[in-house]
C-alpha cells in the first residue's frame, strides 16, 4: 500500500471514530485499534499508542463546544478526575506485575454486566433528579443545560463516592490497557450518580483527555507513538470530534443510549476476546 493511500484511508476512518467517540464520551480507540490491527496489520503496541493520541484529540476537540453549550459539568469532571488520574497511575504501575489476561477478562466481564442496567434505562429521556445533599451538595455537583427541544434541565448528582469508585476503575483500565476508560466513566455518572446521559457522555469526554495524557508519557518514551500512524489519526479525530460535538445537541437521549449500549457490548467483547488470545 502507498503511504498516501494509507494516510487518506486512516484519516477517513478516524473522522468516523471522532464523531461517535465524542458523542458517546469514549476515546474512539474501539474503532481506531481494530482498524489499525485488522485492516492495516499494524502491531498492537503502535495501535494503542495511536489510540492514546486519539483519546486526547477526541477530548480536547469536542470539549470546547460542549463547555460553551454548558452541557459538560466541569465540577463533576474535575472531582472525578481525582479518581481517574490516581487509577491511571495504579494501572500503569501494576502493569509490570499483574497478569494482563486476568485483568482484561475481569474488566471485560464487568462491562458486560453493566449492559443490564444500561439496557433497562433504554427509552429514558431525562432521569428523575435526586435530592442534592451530603458530599454532592458540599462539592456543588449540580447543574442545568438546555435540551434539543429547548427545555431547561436542572439536575443534581447523587452518590459521589460510588462515582469516584467507578471512575477509579476507569483509570486503572486506561493506565493498564490504554483503552476502555471512557465506558467506565460514562457508566459511573449514568448509573451511580444519576446524571442526564448527555451530561455523562460530555463530562466523560472532558475527562478522558487527562487520563490519556497521564499515561501518554510511557507510550511516548517507549516509542509506541509512531508519527506515520498518529498523524492521520490525530487529524481525522479532531475533525470528527468537531462534527460530533455539533451533532450531539441535536440528538435525542434515547438514541445516544442505544448507540452507547451497542459500543459497550462491542468493547466488552473486544476485551474478553483479547483476554482469550484473539487480538482485535
Amino acid at each position, binding site marked *: *500500500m*502507498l*503511504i*498516501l493511500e494509507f*494516510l487518506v484511508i486512516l484519516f477517513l476512518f478516524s473522522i468516523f471514530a471522532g464523531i461517535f467517540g465524542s458523542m458517546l464520551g469514549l476515546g474512539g480507540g474501539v474503532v481506531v485499534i481494530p482498524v489499525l490491527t485488522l485492516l*492495516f*496489520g*499494524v502491531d498492537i*503496541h*503502535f495501535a494503542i499508542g495511536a489510540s492514546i*493520541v486519539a483519546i*486526547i*484529540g477526541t477530548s*480536547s*476537540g469536542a*470539549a*470546547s*463546544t460542549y*463547555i*460553551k453549550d454548558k452541557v459538560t459539568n*466541569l465540577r463533576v469532571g*474535575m472531582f472525578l*478526575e*481525582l479518581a481517574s*488520574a*490516581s487509577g*491511571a*497511575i495504579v494501572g*500503569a*504501575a501494576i*502493569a*509490570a506485575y499483574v497478569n*494482563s489476561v486476568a485483568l482484561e477478562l475481569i474488566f471485560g466481564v464487568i462491562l458486560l454486566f453493566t449492559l443490564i442496567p444500561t439496557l433497562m434505562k433504554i427509552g429514558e429521556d431525562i432521569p428523575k433528579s435526586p435530592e442534592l445533599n451530603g458530599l454532592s451538595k*458540599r*462539592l456543588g455537583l449540580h447543574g442545568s443545560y438546555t435540551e434539543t427541544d429547548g427545555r431547561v434541565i436542572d439536575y443534581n448528582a447523587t452518590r459521589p463516592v460510588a462515582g469516584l469508585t467507578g471512575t477509579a476503575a476507569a483509570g486503572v483500565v486506561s*493506565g493498564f490497557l490504554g483503552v476502555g476508560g471512557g465506558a467506565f466513566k460514562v457508566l459511573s455518572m449514568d448509573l451511580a450518580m444519576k446524571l442526564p446521559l448527555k451530561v455523562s457522555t460530555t463530562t466523560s469526554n472532558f475527562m478522558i*483527555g*487527562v487520563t490519556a*495524557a*497521564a*499515561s*501518554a*508519557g*510511557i507510550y*511516548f*518514551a*517507549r*516509542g*509506541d*507513538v*509512531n*508519527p*506515520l*500512524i*498518529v*498523524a*492521520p489519526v*490525530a*487529524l481525522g479525530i*479532531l475533525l470528527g470530534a468537531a462534527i460530533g460535538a455539533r451533532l450531539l445537541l441535536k440528538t435525542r437521549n434515547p438514541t445516544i443510549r442505544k448507540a452507547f449500549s451497542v459500543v459497550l457490548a462491542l468493547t466488552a467483547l473486544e476485551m474478553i476476546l483479547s483476554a482469550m488470545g484473539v487480538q482485535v
Partner: protein
Amino acid sequence: MNLRDPESMSVVIGTLLRYGVVLSAIIVIAGTIRLATASGLSDTNGLFAYSADTIPHGTFSLSVSGFFNGLAALDPYSLIELGVMVLIATPVARVTASVLLFAAERDRIYVVITAVVLGLLLFSMLATPFIPVFHG
C-alpha cells in the same frame, strides 16, 4: 473579563482547548504535507514492523537531538511529533488553568482538588516511563 466570576471558567477553558487543538492540527498538517510530498508514493511495507528489542520500537527516530535537528530541517516525523506533543499538552494546560481560576474564585475545595489532579497528572506523565515493563 472578571476572573472571579464563575462564568469565566468555561470561557477560559473552552478557549484554551480550542487554541491548543488548532495549533496542534496546523503543525500535524504541515508535517503530513511534508510526508506526503516527500514519500507519499513509496510503499508502507516494513514501516509498521515492531521490534521489541529496540527503543523506539519502530523505524522512526526518537532521540532528543534528532528531534530538534529534524525540526530545524522541517523533517515530517519531527513536525508530527511536535504537533502531537502540543495535543498532549492541552489537557495539562487545562488542568493548570483550572487551578488558577478556582484560586481566583476563592473556591478552596476545588483549588485543592484540581491541584491534586495536576500533581497526579505530572507525576504520572514524568514517572511512569521509568516503571520497568516486562511484558511490553
